[in-house]
């Protein structure tokens, strides 16, 4: 560390002598050398941003600055502290005037790789909870795919009025997860590990939280290669981590895989699940529809509002070739928008399983060792349902096809869709519910119409149609752009100038 420089910086605060301190030019843009920056999330909405960056390097550690920005990018708090050489901030959540930040330190500078810190809004640290993977029961053997998908299994969320929950994937690779409930001031309330009831493998991830319950998706399989699996919706008590319910999601020959849980305008908890035939799940599962229900977060009881079967319920708007495949391709449902008038819009994308010519050539050259399989992602669509829950129309949003090589041939469609989702290959990025919930905008990437590849905001009209706004980001030498989720109604555009090592953060309206 260049001690002298830092001394000078500090000196600058008091050397100037004014009657009323020196005025400064108002600078509206945050310019920083950025290491990691994340959105601060509260109840699935962006309420601010946490910028975390290295300000100096030392022998074995580095000096970091945390800047807490409100949703308008105004700094409201900050902190500077020492940490591992390559400390990474992964997530930030807000609850009751406190922030919980989840860090990753591969060097284990303080003896742990994963930890969370809780700060007040001024940036003062109030608590630290580390994650000790040794506590997790060791399993027989690991799951390679799961290991690559660490980000899927790990989650952080706020629990309204209660604190925070953080979920880690087991380092023992049993497929289990370790859950920590942390109070508002950053003290560990309870810690719990969940693994599969049987066999060695469980897919587990945090779906959502309510003030009473932590909701998880669980899929148990006998082994990594097992063709069958059981799916559950698990509810843990916020108070003590006890299992409130473990609801099997295999019902009457259909598997319901929870996709999202959110509150509708009538304040009821809605659960949306994709449907597949129970006997086909995991190994060759193909989505045949989706279901909407109302969830009781204390008992796990789901009151089905409607099961939408692609063949039966969408035939008036979409021509189906089989139970799971339309003329346009397979359907990937991304989100269900609950409109003000009680109607719904499903945002989805069509995709196909295709063969890549290059992949085929490689396959021949390597005598069958390479994969020729690829996914072709096609148009987006808006599928509208009336208040009577009947499909009304399907509006296609044309975009150029995108081809994504698949790691292996013979992947089941369900798994292919999951891989494409996890790898962020679909054009869909996220849904912006707007400031007051009246304007819902879908952010997507792709080449829409004649335009070149880029980010487009599609604002969904209540009744019919949509308007688009394209974010044209000028190409400059040594400058790259990142479009991130912003506060409702906005996106964050981060411009990184690698030459000047400078990041400019800006907000732009989505509609």
């Amino acid at each position, binding site marked *: 560390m260049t001690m002298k420089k830092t001394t000078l910086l500090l000196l600058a605060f*008091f050397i100037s002598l004014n009657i009323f301190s020196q005025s400064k030019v108002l600078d509206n843009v945050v310019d920083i050398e950025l290491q990691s920056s994340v959105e601060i999330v509260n109840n699935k909405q962006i309420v601010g941003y946490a910028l975390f960056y290295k300000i100096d390097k030392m022998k074995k*550690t580095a000096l970091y600055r945390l800047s807490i920005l409100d*949703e308008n990018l*105004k700094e409201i708090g900050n902190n500077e502290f*020492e940490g591992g050489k390559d400390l990474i901030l992964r997530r930030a959540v807000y609850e009751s005037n406190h922030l919980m930040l989840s860090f990753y330190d591969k060097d284990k500078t303080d003896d742990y790789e994963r930890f969370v810190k809780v700060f007040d809004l*001024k940036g003062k640290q109030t608590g630290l909870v580390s994650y000790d993977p040794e506590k997790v029961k060791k399993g027989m053997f690991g799951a390679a795919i799961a290991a690559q998908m660490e980000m899927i299994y790990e989650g952080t969320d706020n629990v309204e009025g209660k604190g925070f929950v953080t979920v880690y994937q087991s380092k023992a690779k049993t497929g289990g997860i370790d859950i920590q409930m942390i109070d508002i001031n950053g003290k560990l309330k309870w810690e719990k590990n969940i693994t599969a009831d049987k066999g060695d493998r469980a897919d587990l991830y945090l779906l959502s939280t309510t003030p009473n319950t932590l909701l998880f998706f669980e899929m148990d399989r006998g082994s990594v290669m097992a063709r069958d699996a059981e799916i559950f919706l698990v509810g843990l008590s916020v108070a003590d981590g006890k299992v409130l319910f473990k609801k099997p999601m295999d019902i009457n020959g259909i598997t319901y895989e929870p996709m999202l849980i959110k509150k509708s305008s009538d304040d009821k908890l809605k659960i949306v699940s994709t449907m597949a035939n129970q006997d086909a799940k995991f190994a060759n599962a193909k989505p045949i529809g989706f279901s909407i229900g109302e969830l009781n977060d204390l008992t796990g009881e789901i009151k089905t509002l409607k099961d939408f079967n692609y063949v039966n319920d969408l035939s008036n708007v979409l021509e189906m070739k089989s139970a799971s495949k339309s003329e346009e391709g397979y359907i990937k449902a991304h989100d269900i928008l609950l409109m003000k008038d009680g109607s719904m819009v499903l945002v989805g994308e069509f995709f196909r399983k295709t063969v890549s010519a290059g992949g085929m050539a490689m396959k021949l050259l390597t005598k069958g060792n390479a994969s020729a399989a690829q996914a072709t992602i096609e148009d987006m669509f808006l599928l509208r349902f009336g208040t009577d829950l009947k499909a009304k129309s399907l509006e296609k949003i044309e975009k150029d096809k995108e081809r994504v090589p698949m790691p292996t041939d013979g992947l089941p469609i369900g798994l292919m869709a999951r891989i494409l989702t996890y790898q962020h290959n679909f054009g869909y990025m996220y849904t912006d519910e707007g400031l*007051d919930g009246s304007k819902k905008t879908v952010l997507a990437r792709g080449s829409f119409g004649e335009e070149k590849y880029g980010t487009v905001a599609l604002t969904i009209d209540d009744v019919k149609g949509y308007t688009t706004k394209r974010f044209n980001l000028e190409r400059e030498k040594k400058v790259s752009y990142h479009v991130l989720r912003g506060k409702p109604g906005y996106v964050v555009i981060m411009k990184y100038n690698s030459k000047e090592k400078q990041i400019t953060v800006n*907000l732009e309206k989505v509609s």
Partner: protein
Amino acid sequence: MHFQLPYIYAKLLFAFCLSLLFAHLNAQQTTADFGQLSSVKYKEKIAQLEKYTVPVKYTEKSAQAWYKEILTDRNKSLLETFKGDQLVYDTLLLNKCNEIFARIKGNNKNFNFDSITLYINRSIIANAACYGEGTIMINLGLFLWIDNDDELAMVIAHELAHQLLKHTDSKLEKSIAMLTSDDFKDELKKIKKENYGKFSRFRELMKGLNIESGKHSTYKESEADSLGVVFIRNAKYNVTTAAKILLKLDNADDIYKSNKLYVLKDFLENSGANLSYFNVKPKYNGLSTIQVEMNADKDLDSIKTHPDCIKRYEAIEGKNNIPVVTCCTGVNNTYAIFKEHAMLEMVRYEYEKNAIGWCTHLSFFALKNNYNPSVYNQFLSMCFSKLFYEDKLLRRFSAANANAERESTLKTTQDFLFAADTKDLETLAIYFLNLKVDSNSEDYAFADLMYNTQVKMKDATAAYAGFLNKYPQSKYQYLIQKK
């Protein structure tokens, strides 16, 4: 009677001269007259700063090295201020300041004021500063709060006192003494050897230095106040009236914190823009809606960071009968002309800096408080045209963002600028252009030029050429050149 007549004549003559002077000044104000910018006006000073070499003051090597580094840094910052047009040569404001300075100087002959020069800084913060080596800056923002010569004299005298008491130098000396002390060096060596916790130990070490500085500073402020009062008393200014500026400055944050400055909706009511924005109560609550006691955003400086203004007033005037001051909003007094000038320069500066949020806010504030409507309608039109243009380039947020405090009038304006539809920006640009702006003036022509090039996307090169052909000596020329 015999004795009264000359007195009345003199009084009438004086009133007549005064009215002529004000008529002249007011006539100047019907159009936006800008002062010369520092990069052009202060070329000599810039050359002098560029040639600056740090004098040898310490025989001890490390002390001289610290001294050199700090002074070089200060000189660099000062040079940037001058070169970067952060100062303006506004003759009206500067002449007034120099007039007061001359009176203080003339009545305090025991002191040597020769090396001191006053400058006008374009900052909107109500403030003044002594930079050492005879450089004193008075911010434009201060003029919004000043209502008479006594108050301005108090501020200038205080800064002069800082300079004459060599506060900058003594502070510097004390800091260098500490930085070169054996204790400090030893602690620094120990910290350097550490593998962990370097920064926290270093911060702890420097904290001691800061606290020391803080105490010192409070004392120095009082010392400067005391000598300042002596200066203005000798110069026959009214100390009681003058001291009120301290009470006003205690409220100087109002310009960006108050929620009672104006009602934005009132200005937009007849514009034809969609005002439903004001009726919507968002469900969403971001972190800006949460009260964080200490604002960590250091960009926006605050008067409140200084030694308590009320206590300083009490020290000068005693604790009894502290008057309630309402400030900043009125322009209908003898200092109106100075406020008008300062406001115009501030609005121009914010526009020039692309700080559209601030420029719009100050313009609405000016309109609300009866500043020349023609000027501020013109600037509002230019602001909305520019915001429309910035929106196209995905830079609307940067331009509109004013780092507003929650629940302030400024935040209402800022949030409106964030949220307004682009077609409303266009509507507002044309609405304000046609509202009380003299359509035959150069100001109107420039605002119209901005509307046509930034909103209507007309060919800028041809449009600028046309404008400059009509107004070859235009005061807006430098803005066009910047483009």
